[in-house]
C-alpha cells in the first residue's frame, strides 16, 4: 500500500501498522539546527522534518527526534540562465507561484505537476518538494517533474562531501530510494536546456482530481531533438525512454515493453497493473503523435 504525497525528508521509510492520533507521541525532542552540518552523529530514531505533512499523517513509533529543516533558511528558488535551482525545503505553494521565463516552454510542467497532487492547495502551503521526492512514492508528482526535466539532485551525506545524482536514478522502488542513513536531499537543479523543450502531459486517475494512476510526460528539444518519454505513477519507479528523433508507433511500444516488465507496474488501490499498462501505451502513443511533428 502506498501513502499520501509526502513532505518529510526522511532517511528511513517504514510501514507502520499502528493506530494513533497524529500527535507523534513518541517524539521527545525537536532539534532546530542552523546548519545541516550540526547534525553529525546520525542514529536510529532521528528524522528530518520538512513540511511535516506526511510525517504527521501517521504514527512514527520508531522516531524519537525530529530535526527541523525549517530553521536552515535555505533560499527556496533561484532561477538563472542555466536553469532553476530549488531548495528541498521549497514549499509546493512557492513552486506553484513561480512564473518561469516564457522561453522555457516546459516550465509549464511545474503547474501541471503541482496540480497532479492528490492533496489540495492547503497542503501545498506546508508540503515541500524535497519531501515529496524522498517519500519516493510512485505518484509523487515532484518526481515526475524533476525526472522529466532532466534534473539533478544534490545530496548531503552525514559524513563526506555532497554528491550529485540524476533525478532519474534517485527512486529505486515504491517508497525506496538511494539515500543513505542520515543523508539529506539539499537541492534540485532543473537545467535550462530541458526547460526550453516542448512538452506533452498526460495523466489519469480513478477519481476526479484524485491520485495519479499514470502520469506521462513527453519532451522534445528543438529543432529536431529526440523524444524523451518519462513514465511515472503507473510504475513503481520512474522510467525514462530517450529516442533519437521520433520513434514509430511500434518502436515506442517495443521500447515500453522492454523497459517495463509487468512486475514494474504498480498494483494498489489506485489502479490495477493491467489498466496502468494499457493507459501507458495509450498516452505514450498520444504523446508521440503530439510531439512527433
Amino acid at each position, binding site marked *: *500500500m502506498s501513502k499520501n504525497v509526502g513532505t518529510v525528508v526522511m532517511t528511513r521509510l517504514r510501514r507502520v501498522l499502528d493506530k494513533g492520533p497524529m500527535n507523534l*507521541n*513518541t517524539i*521527545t525532542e525537536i532539534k532546530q539546527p542552523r546548519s545541516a552540518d550540526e547534525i553529525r552523529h546520525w542514529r536510529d530514531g532521528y528524522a528530518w522534518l520538512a513540511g*511535516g505533512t506526511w510525517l*504527521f499523517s501517521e504514527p512514527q513509533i520508531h522516531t524519537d527526534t525530529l530535526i527541523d529543516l525549517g530553521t536552515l533558511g535555505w533560499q527556496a528558488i533561484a532561477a538563472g540562465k542555466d536553469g532553476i535551482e530549488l531548495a528541498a525545503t521549497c514549499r509546493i505553494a512557492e513552486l506553484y507561484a513561480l512564473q518561469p521565463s516564457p522561453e522555457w516552454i516546459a516550465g509549464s510542467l511545474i503547474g501541471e505537476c503541482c496540480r497532479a497532487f492528490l492533496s489540495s492547495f492547503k497542503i501545498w502551503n506546508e508540503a515541500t518538494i524535497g519531501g515529496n521526492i524522498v517519500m519516493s512514492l510512485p505518484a509523487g508528482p515532484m518526481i515526475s517533474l524533476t525526472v522529466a526535466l532532466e534534473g539533478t539532485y544534490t545530496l548531503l551525506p552525514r559524513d563526506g562531501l555532497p554528491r550529485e545524482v540524476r533525478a532519474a536514478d534517485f527512486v529505486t522502488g515504491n517508497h525506496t530510494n538511494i539515500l543513505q542513513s542520515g543523508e539529506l536531499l539539499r537541492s534540485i537543479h532543473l537545467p535550462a536546456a530541458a526547460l526550453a523543450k516542448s512538452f506533452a502531459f498526460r495523466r*489519469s486517475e480513478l477519481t476526479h482530481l484524485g491520485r495519479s494512476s499514470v502520469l506521462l510526460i513527453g519532451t522534445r528539444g528543438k529543432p529536431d531533438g529526440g523524444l524523451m518519454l518519462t513514465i511515472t505513477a503507473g510504475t513503481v519507479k520512474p522510467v525514462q525512454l530517450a529516442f533519437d528523433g521520433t520513434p514509430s508507433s511500434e518502436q515506442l511500444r517495443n521500447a515500453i515493453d522492454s523497459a517495463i516488465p509487468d512486475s514494474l507496474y504498480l498494483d494498489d488501490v489506485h489502479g*490495477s497493473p*493491467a489498466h496502468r499498462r*494499457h493507459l501507458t501505451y495509450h498516452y505514450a502513443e498520444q504523446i508521440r503523435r503530439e510531439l512527433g511533428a
Partner: protein
Amino acid sequence: MKLQVNGKSFAATPAPGQCLRVFLRDLGWYGVKKGCDGGDCGACTVWVDEKPVHSCLYPAFRAEGKEITTIEGLAKNGELHPMQQAFLDAQSFQCGYCAAGMIMTAAALSDEQKQDLPRALKGNLCRCTGYGSIRDAFAGVKNIAPDDAGASVGASVPNPFAEGIVTGHARYTSDIPPMDGLLHLKVLRSPHAHANILSIDRSEAMAVPGVVDVFTWEDVPRRLYSTAIHEDNRVDPDDTYMLDNVARFVGQRIAAVVAETEGAAEEGCRRLKVGYEILPAVFDPTEAMEPGAPVLHDKGGDSRILHPNKNVFLELHGEVGSVAQGFAAADAIYEETYDAPRQQHVHLETMQSITWRGEDGRLHVRTSVQGPFIVKGKLCYLFGILPADLHVFTERVGGGFGGKQDMMSEDLPLLATIKTGRPVMWEFTREEQFTGATTRHPMKTRVKLGAKKDGTLTAMQFRIVSNTGAYGNHGGETLANGMSGPWAVYRCPNKKGDGYAVYTNLQCGGGFRGYGTGQPTFAVESALDELAALLNVDPIEMRRKNMIGPDDEVESVLEGASDLTMGSYGLDQCVDAIEKALASRRGIPKPEGEDWLEGSGVALSMLDCVPPTEQRSGSEVTLRPDGGYHFTVGSVEIGNGLVTAQQQVVAQVMGCPTARVTFLNADTDKTPYDSGTFASVGMMVPTKAVENASVALREKLLAFAARTTGTKVEQCRLEDDAVLCGDRRVLLTELYSAARAQGEELTCFRKAYGSPRTVAFMVYGVRLAVHRVSGEIRILFSIEAVDAGVVMNPNQLRGQVIGGVVQGIGWALQEKMVYDDAGAVINPTLRNYRIPTFADAPITEVFFADTFDAIGPLGSKSIAENTINPVAPAIGNALKAATGVRFTALPFTEDRIFSKLTET
C-alpha cells in the same frame, strides 16, 4: 512558547510531537475538528498567518509567534464573516461536523480559486450533503424560508444549530473541557484473523509511566451479547464478549489500556505481549458454509445462531405462488449473480465516548451513538448496573449513516471508569473506523427473472449470501430487509427467495443506510433491464408494467401477515418525472470525441418507513413561562435534520414560529424513552410522538383557555403567542401564569409506536459518458425523484436526497475496501479509500412527488435511507446502455471495467 489564537495571546508549550490540531483543542478551541488526522478530510483546517493549513499535519512547535485563526475567530465584532453568512443562508451542512473546516477553507479562497471549486475544495470531505448546498453557498443561494407562525410545515426553516455550526460553537461529543483526572483509553487490536489468545503479559505495559490500568478478557463480565442496537435484542445473536479470548477478525479488540495521556496508552498497547495460537481462517461466505471450514462460533442455542457448525447465523426461505410454474410460463428468463461489496460509513465524527462517575454517585456516558437508550440497557446488562444508576446521552452527533447503530465505544470506557473511579475518554481513530467498526454487508445475489413477451413478470427468484463477518450483529435483520422491499415493489404472482447470513473471519457488517436493501436492489434493478432487453421492451415501460400500484398488497417472499400498508403512493409520479427529465436532455453535454460513449439508466426502490421489529418513542411538550414551547424526545440528531422537523411539527400544531420552540433530545435522564434513530424511523416514530404530544397539549391549552375565559372551546383557537377566545386574545404567558396559579401543568406526554408501517418510493435517473479506452465515467445528468409524502422541510429533504445520491455514487464508482490474504484491510485511510469529493459529486436535481401519507406525521414519511438504493443499479444500467456491457460487480472503477470495453 507564545502564539496568538483568534486575537488572544497564549503562552503554552506543546509536546515535541504534538500537532497543532490537538494543541489548539487543548487550549479550548473546539471548533477545530478531528476527522481523519491524516490530512485528507480538512475538518481541522485553520489559518496560520492567514494561510489555510490542515492543523492535524502542522507541527505545533512551528506555531510559535504565529497568528492562528480558527472558526471561532472568523466572525469579527459580532458580525459573521461573509462566508459564514453564505453557509448559514444556504444551510450548507447536515451533521455540521465538516463545516468548520469547510468554511475556513472557503473563506480563504481567491476569486480565481472560486472559479474552480472542485479543485479548490478537494481537500475537504463532507459525507452528508453531497456538496449540493455547499455549491449553493458559493452561488449565494438562500435556502432558508421565513419562519412564519403556524406555517412551518413545507417551509425550509433553518436548522436550529445553524449558527453554532458556522461559528464552531456547536458541541460534538468530545467538545467539552477535560474533566479532572481524565484518563485516555486505547485498544490493542488483533493482527490475526482467527486465533486463540493463550496469554497476555501486561507487566511491561503497566510499567509505562502514565499507564493506570490494563483490561483483557479476564477482566470483563463473561456475558454474551450483541453490539447491534435494536429494541428487541433477540433479533440479533448473542455471540460477542466485551473482550474475548478468541480473535475472529483482524482488528478485533484484544485489550484496553487506560493512561494519563493518549501517548502513554498507545505505548502501553505496544508493550502488551500477547501469545496467540493461530487458527485457520475463512473469508469467503460460500467457503465458510462448506463442510470442514473453520467454525467461528462454537456456541450453544442461547446465542441464537441457527447452524453454528456451518457458520450460518441465519437462513431465511420463502415462496409465494410457484416459481417453477412462473418460469415455465415465461417467454424469456434472465439469470445472473450480482456482487455488492462493503462500504464504510465515513461519518466525519468517529465513534467516541466519555464516561465518568458523577457527584451524584451515578455513572454517566456521553457518546456518539444512534440509540442511547438501548446502549443504556446493554451496559446495565453487561455490568449489572441498576438502570437508575446509569445515564447515557448524546449532544451533537457528527454523522451516523447506520455506523453508530452498534455499541462499540461505550463499554470499555465505562469498564475503566468503574474500575478506576476516574473519567475516561475513548475516540476511535479513522483507521479504527476501517478496521474495527462495521461496514455495509457484502452480499452476493443470484437473481432469476422470467417474463411474458409483453414484459409481464411471471417469476422472481433469488438467493442472497450475506457476509456478516466475525459477528452476527445486524446480519439477520439486514438479510430480512434485503429479502423484502426490492422484491415487493414488483407485482408478480410467483416469488421465491433464499437468504443466508454467514460468518467469516472479516470485520462485521453493520447497519448501513438502506440496511441490506441496496445490495439486492443492485441485482434486481440490473436484472430487470437485462430481461427488458431480451424482450425488446423499454426499461421504463418494463417497470411501469410490473411495479406495484396504490391498491396492491406489499408482498415479498416471507410468510405471515404484515402491518405494512401503503399510506401513500407516489411511485407513478416518480417514474414519470424521471422519464421526462431524461428525455429533456438536461445536464452537461457528452465530452467531444468518438471515444466517449453515452447512455442513460434508471432504477427504482421501495423501503419500509419503519422496521418490522419493535420501535417506540415518546415526547413531552410543555408551555414555557415565556409563552414558547419546549419539547423533549429521545431520538438522536445525527445530521438527519430530525430536530428541525420536530420543531416544525410543534410549531405547526401550536400555530407559532419554530423560533419559539426549544427542545432537548437523546438523553436517558431527561427525555422519554426511544428505541433509537435508525431504519428511517425518525420521522415516523419519534416525530409522530412529538405530533401526538403537541396535539394533546393544544387540546389542553384550548380547554384551559375556554374554562378560564368562559368561552366555548369551539370558539377558541391558538394564534401565535396567544389563544383567541371568541373576541378576546389571551396571551400564552398569561395563560401560563393562570395555570400555575391554579396548580395546573400545561404539559403533555404521548407515545408513538412503529405500526402500522408505510412505504416510501425513490426513482433515480442518470445519463453518463464513458471513455471506451480509459474507462473513465463522467456523470452528465443526475436526478432523483422522491415520494416523501408531505415535504416537511424542502431544503433539508433535498440535502438528504443529494447526500444519499452522492454516497450511492461513491459506492457505485469509487469506494472499495481491499483486504490482503490474511484478512487485513490494506486501505484504512481516507486517501486510499476514496469517498466522493466535491469533484466527484455531480449536480443532482430532486423531484418531490405530491402525496399525503395517511400514517406519518402531518402527512409526511421518511426517505433518507432509500435515497441511496437505486443509484448504483441506475448507473450500471446507463453503463450498459452506453457500452453494451453489463457489469455485475461494484464499484465500476476504470481499472475494473476498461478491459471489457476494449473487447467490444
